[in-house]
């Protein structure tokens, strides 16, 4: 009867349910908090993102991307390479590599033909992410069922950049007294063999404690061919930290009627 159904991981263990934050999750959160509150390209530091298109002006107040104290620059993409031109000369901006411009940091990302520049300023308020109390009952293990319609789809990744993702399948989890089917996409990482199995989901806490647009949670492969889905690891898309980022549109399905009071919270 329960074949293929995701089960509470801890029910497999004779140990009693414990609400203590596991050490690995505590470390993971500490690393993320350190990055979020101190990295020059943290989403908390993002002040603007702009499509480059045929070219944009940066600097003066009337520029496409105004940057206080920066004289006029022009950013163009030709033949896939971004170039930042200033009165004193120009320089190439490699994709995905931060460059400095006065007090600002710039990155150019996105697929060819759809390159975007993101501008970062020193973080004003290093607000730490907040989390719901740890919920051991919201950790599941189980199989990943093959997708009904294999193929690829263009979606926004957690950082608001468009990627070609692959339908990876579905998982079925028991939450709030019902079985919920969740769609899983494999999101590639630019310039790498690495990718992530992600679920972008909405639930009953959205706008009432968690981010209104929904949250991401990874599906983590285990050594036995099964997968772990830990809602305590649910995290906000970058648009929750800065309006510079586009929010991903909700994925078809993936609406959990019950509240998932676990993982990252959102406070206005």
């Amino acid at each position, binding site marked *: 009867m329960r074949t293929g159904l995701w089960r509470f991981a801890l029910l497999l263990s004779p140990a009693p349910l414990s609400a203590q934050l596991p050490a690995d999750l505590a470390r993971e959160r500490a*690393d993320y908090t350190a990055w979020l509150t101190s990295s020059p390209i943290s989403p908390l530091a993002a002040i603007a993102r702009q499509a480059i298109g045929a070219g944009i002006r940066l600097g003066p107040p009337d520029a496409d991307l105004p940057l206080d104290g920066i004289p006029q620059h022009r950013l163009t993409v030709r033949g896939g*390479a971004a170039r930042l031109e200033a009165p004193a000369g120009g320089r190439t901006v*490699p994709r995905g590599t931060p460059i400095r411009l006065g007090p600002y940091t710039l990155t150019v990302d996105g697929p060819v033909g759809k390159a975007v520049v993101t501008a970062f300023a020193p973080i004003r308020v290093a607000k730490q992410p907040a989390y719901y109390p740890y919920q051991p009952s919201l950790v599941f293990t189980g199989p990943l069922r093959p997708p009904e319609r*294999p193929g690829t789809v263009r979606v926004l*990744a*957690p950082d608001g950049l468009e990627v070609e993702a692959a339908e990876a399948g579905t998982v079925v989890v028991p939450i709030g007294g019902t079985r919920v089917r969740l769609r899983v996409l*494999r999101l590639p990482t630019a310039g790498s*063999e*690495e990718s992530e199995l992600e679920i972008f989901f909405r639930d009953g806490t959205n706008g009432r404690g968690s981010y209104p647009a929904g949250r991401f949670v990874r599906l983590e492969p*285990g050594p036995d061919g099964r997968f772990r889905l830990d809602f305590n690891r649910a995290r906000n898309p970058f648009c929750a930290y800065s309006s510079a980022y586009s929010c991903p549109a909700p994925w078809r399905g993936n609406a959990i009627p019950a509240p998932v009071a676990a993982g990252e919270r959102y406070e206005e």
Partner: protein
Amino acid sequence: MRFGWVVVAALVVSPPPPPGGSWRAVLDLAGGMLPFALELSEAKGRWEGRLCNGRRCQALSAVRVDGDSVVLEMADYAATISAARRGDSLAGAYRNVGNRGPRVIPFRASRGRWPARAAPAALLGRWDATFTSEFGSSPRVFEFRNGPQGLEGTMISNTGDYGHFAGAIRGDSFALAHFDGSFVYLLTGRLKGDTLRGDFHAGLRTRTPWVAVRSTGTPHLKAPTEITGADTTQPFRFAFPDLEGRPVSERDPRFAGKVVLVDIFGSWCPTCHDAAPVLVRLYRKYHGRGLEIVGLAYEVTGDSAVDGAQVRRYREKFGLPFPLLLAGINDTEAAAATLPQLRGFTSFPSTVFLGRDGRVRRVHAGFYGPATGRQHERLIREFEREIERLLAESP
């Protein structure tokens, strides 16, 4: 009584033994354990170390030991391993930073060396593998052999190899790893009958299943000469500054009437490091008969001062006797745009063979490094045959 207290206090506060020596290290990936080795040593109060995949080692850029804390730095990749010592074990994490957040993988180590265990003959040799992911299927080739420290080998794709893998064998199962501070690769598999099945793990969580059968000799990968095409009707054109800022183009007198190898490379590219010594040997062997080589560097920052320094280091490291030009940045699309006569350029390194009339005769995408064994030797023979053939043509 007092003496007893002194003894207890000394035991409590005595520092852990120094971390010098050999360590069996592991990264705990979601799908399995990635084994590698660390060698740490101290000389005149200064710690240094090496990170090894089997017999292939690379120096760590810094080793810091402070009490029970050990920090190993790999500056080229802005990566660190930080760990706490507890007796004869280390536990901590490998970290580097990406644009989407920190990349953290659990690390642990214990004193000693990995046992060198030879693999059975049934596992050795060349295998044609097919990787299957949600993005589709793609071919790879595995080369397995027994080295002085047990099973080793490499994995080859359409555009080159993934470097040296080393690992362990247990019964009919194996785990081969390549960890250089940036790339985190683990190949696990099991031989059943005449078929190998397993997973390729990249980073903490990416797992791609594969199936492999013994190579029959029929090409499984796309030939490196089929990947990148070229306009062969006109002389191949390039014009970039050299490391002293002087413009150099195909019209430079040193290339007139010569057979020219254009090496499209980057100092950041490990496979290019494998190719560089081969190019030096080819240059020394054939330069007197009319071979020239020019390296086009596609670097990381696009800042000529920074990139120039990086390429100068590369030139000195390999003693490259031919000119290196700063051609652009290492974005494949951007690089392709600087060489419009190439079609389908996808791979660093790529080697363009020009005849004495300056036109493209062959484009070889990628390079089989020494880790590929026979592939490497065969590639050198192919390059030599092609050069001999082109040198024999009349200008």
